């Protein structure tokens, strides 16, 4: 797992390459292999996937900035407690907002909405922001990681909704969908196929470059 404190500072890297690091080179799902719980459980529909992606992005970016600002006043001994506190506060704010504004979506996401706080991506990324990363680095890294994770979530949700239910946004596209894709085993199968395709693409590209 990557340790952010070992990374170069923003001045030494372009803004785009820092964003790209979280988005692609260290993609939470395809490279770090974290965040599978919402990926498998929630990506049954595109709407659910977009919602959970927005919540994870909000929590990651807000926690990143807050912890980066607080890093000089948090002693090592209470660091973990503060990480959890900050992530919980932002997750609760997001959950309250969704429950108030979109009650049906909140019911559909169920326990996975408050569970965002325990998401490995959030714990992995924000633990780095309390070391010696600047606010700019934290912001760019969290935006990159959020964008990478969101892209995978939404794409998986889109694929599973079409193949598993035969619908897209409640519009019936075809009869006889592959029901198993909408269930948990289908989530693992879809992610497995996507991982295989990404690995194949990366190996192909690497082979051609050599």
């Amino acid at each position, binding site marked *: 797992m990557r340790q952010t404190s070992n990374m170069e500072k923003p001045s030494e890297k372009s803004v785009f390459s820092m964003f790209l690091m979280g988005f692609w080179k260290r993609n939470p799902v395809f490279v770090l292999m974290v965040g599978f719980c919402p990926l498998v459980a929630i990506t*049954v*529909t595109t709407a659910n996937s977009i919602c959970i992606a927005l919540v994870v992005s909000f929590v990651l970016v807000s926690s990143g900035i807050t912890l980066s600002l607080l890093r000089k006043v948090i*002693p090592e*001994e209470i660091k973990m407690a503060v990480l959890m506190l900050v992530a919980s506060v932002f997750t609760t*704010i997001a959950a309250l907002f969704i*429950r108030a*504004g979109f009650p049906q979506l909140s019911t559909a996401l169920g326990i996975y909405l408050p569970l965002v706080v325990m998401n490995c991506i959030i714990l992995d990324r924000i633990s780095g922001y309390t070391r010696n990363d600047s606010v700019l680095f934290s912001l760019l890294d969290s935006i990159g990681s959020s964008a990478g994770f969101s892209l995978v979530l939404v794409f998986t949700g889109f694929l599973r909704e079409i193949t598993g239910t035969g619908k897209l946004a409640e519009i019936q596209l075809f009869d006889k969908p592959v029901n198993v894709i909408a269930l948990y085993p289908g989530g693992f199968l879809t992610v497995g196929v996507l991982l295989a395709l990404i690995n194949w693409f990366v190996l192909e590209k690497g082979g051609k470059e050599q």
Partner: protein
Amino acid sequence: MPKEISKILDNVFRLTLLCVISAFLLSLVNSYLEPKRIENEQNLRAMDYRQVLPGARNFEKKISGGKKYVKGYGQDKIPAGKIITVYGRDYNGYFEALFGISEDYRILGVKFMNKSESTNLEDNASKEDFFRQFIGTSVHDLVDVNNKNVKKIHGAPVSSKAYINAVRKAIGEAESIDATNQ
């Protein structure tokens, strides 16, 4: 004071301060969002009521003989029927369903309330499809679990039986509420 104790107290102070700030922030957000949440939930509930009792415009929560129900009224406050909530257990776990029942004990609409966080093979849409066969049915036609004329959900005999029992329970409750009121 020993250095260790002063460090512990310092950490406790910092953590307590952060907790207090967090609690204050959350209470502010909650006090702003809570009225909106209540309003949205009431609107959604009213939509569900209108869906299961199509002729009703106004709804009133009532209790009769220890049973809770919702009475629907149409134009000029003419009673349009009752909405009975039935709790049951199907193959996937517990469910909550709303049944709209007319004054002559015919089923006017059914709605499943518990939207699961995952999709099951028999989702709420297929359950509601299954219940459509009972719309317009009266208690006198109903409902023998083993009746061959009653279509079951394909591949879900346990759940089909549970839902048919829910229909019977809803109509039974509507009758018993009226009996108590008389």
